[in-house]
C-alpha cells in the first residue's frame, strides 16, 4: 500500500491563450472502499489562482489550511493580490521546510496573473520541487494515464472552449483507466473575465 494512493484522486491543469483549465476527479476512498463521491481536490485561493492537492487527503487538507493562512497574511501585509508564481514559491518553500518529514501531497498551481492575465501552471513533488512547463501538468494516481493523452490533445494558444474540451477529454480518459479516481470530474476554466465551472459525468465508479 502506498500512502500516495491510499485516498486516490487526480488533478490536471492545462494552459491556453490567456486562460487556464484545472480539472479534478471527485472520488475520495480508503484503499478499495469509496467513502465520498463529491470531494474536489481543486481549491480557489484567489479569484484567478487555484491550487490542486492530490495524494494523501489528510495532508492535502492540512497543506490547504497552511496555504490559506499564508495567503491571508500576504494580502493583508502587502495589500495586493497573489500572483500564481508567488503562490507556487510559497507552497514550494512550505513543502521544503518539511524536507525530512514531508507532507504526502503533490501540489499543483494554476492561474492567471491578476494584472497581465498571463497563464501559469506548475506542479511540485512532495518536497516542493517546482516544474512549470508551458503546456500541461498532472498529479495524482491517474498522473501517468493523463500525460500521454494530454500530449495528443494539447496545442499552442488554444482558446477557452478548445482548452476546456482538451482538459475534459484528457481527465475523462484517466478516470476510465485509474481505479482510484473517478465518480465524475469538475473542470474550472479560468479566463480574464470569469471562471467557468463545469461538472462532467463519467463512469460513476
Amino acid at each position, binding site marked *: 500500500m502506498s500512502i500516495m494512493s491510499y485516498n486516490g484522486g487526480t488533478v490536471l491543469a492545462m494552459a491556453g491563450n490567456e486562460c487556464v483549465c484545472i480539472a479534478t476527479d471527485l472520488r475520495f476512498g480508503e484503499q478499495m472502499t469509496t467513502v465520498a463521491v463529491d470531494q474536489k481536490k481543486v481549491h480557489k485561493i484567489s479569484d484567478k489562482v487555484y491550487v490542486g492537492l492530490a495524494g494523501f487527503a489528510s495532508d492535502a487538507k492540512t497543506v490547504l*489550511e*497552511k496555504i*490559506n*493562512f499564508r495567503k*491571508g*497574511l500576504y494580502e*493583508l*501585509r502587502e495589500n495586493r493580490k497573489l500572483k500564481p508564481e508567488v503562490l507556487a514559491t510559497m507552497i514550494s518553500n512550505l513543502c521544503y521546510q518539511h524536507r525530512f518529514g514531508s507532507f504526502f501531497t503533490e501540489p499543483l498551481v494554476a492561474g492567471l496573473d491578476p494584472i497581465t492575465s498571463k497563464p501559469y501552471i506548475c506542479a511540485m513533488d512532495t518536497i516542493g520541487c517546482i516544474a512549470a512547463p508551458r503546456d500541461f501538468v498532472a498529479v495524482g494516481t491517474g498522473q501517468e494515464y493523463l500525460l500521454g493523452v494530454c500530449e495528443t490533445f494539447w496545442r499552442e494558444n488554444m482558446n477557452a472552449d478548445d482548452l476546456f474540451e482538451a482538459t475534459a477529454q484528457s481527465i475523462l480518459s484517466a478516470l476510465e483507466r485509474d481505479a482510484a479516481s473517478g465518480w465524475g470530474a469538475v473542470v474550472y476554466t479560468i479566463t480574464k473575465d470569469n471562471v467557468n465551472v463545469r461538472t462532467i459525468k463519467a463512469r460513476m465508479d
Partner: protein
Amino acid sequence: MSRGSSAGFDRHITIFSPEGRVYQVEYAFKAINSTNLSAVAVKGVDSACIAVQKRIPDKLIVSDSVTSVYQLTPTISCCMLGIIPDCKYQVRRAQLEAAQWKYKNAYNMPAEQLARRIADLNQFYTQNAEMRSLGCGMLMISFDDEDGPQVYRIDPAGSYRNMKGAGLGVKDTTIKHSLEKKLKKKSDFDKDGTIQCALEVLQESLGNDVRASDLELIYVTKDKRAFNKLTTEEIEAHLTIIANRD
C-alpha cells in the same frame, strides 16, 4: 501617602513606585500623543466607524503612504495612534494572531478575542523588565456575527473595553465629553449617521477648520465587513451635510 524611598529606578523600568504607580506605563500613554493626532470611533445600529486626523509630517513624503488605519482581518479594522513603528509592529502582530486563530480554529477571530489578545500582550510588557511597553493605542472596529457592531479601545496598560464610542490621542478627553453628550441624545445611528457623528465630534474637538483632506475615515457594516475607506470626496460630502445641518 507615606513616601517610601526608591533609588530612583522606578521611572526607568516597569517596577512600582512607592505610591503604587508604574511610571513607564504612564510614559507610554504620553507617547500616544507624540504625533499630536486624534481619533474617534462610534458605533450605530448596524455599523461602526473610525474617523482619524491625517497629517503629512514632511512635504517630501508620498501622502498615500501615510495612514493610521489598517485592516487586521477580513472582518476587523483598526486605527492606531502613537509611535509609528510601534503601531506598525502591533498591527503586524494582531494580523498574525488573528491568522493563527483562523488556522487553528477554522473560523475568523472575533474582535473581542483579538482585543483581549492584544491587551494581554500589552500587559505582559508592563510586567517585564526586558521589553518596554509599546507607545501606541488602538481603536478596533468590527461587525460581529453574534453581537453586531463593535468598538474596542486598547491601551498600553493592557486594558481593553467594549465601547459605545471612544476617543484616542491628544484630544481624547474633549472627544469623550463630546461623545457622552451626543450619545445621550441618540445612539441608534444608521451608517451615514454613525459617520456623521464621528466627523462632528472630531470637528468639534479639533476646531471647526478641519478639511476633508486632513481626515481618514473607515467604516464597517453588516453587509460590508471588510476594510472600507471613504475617499476625500465622500468625506467632503458628509462634512457638507453636517455644515448645512447647523
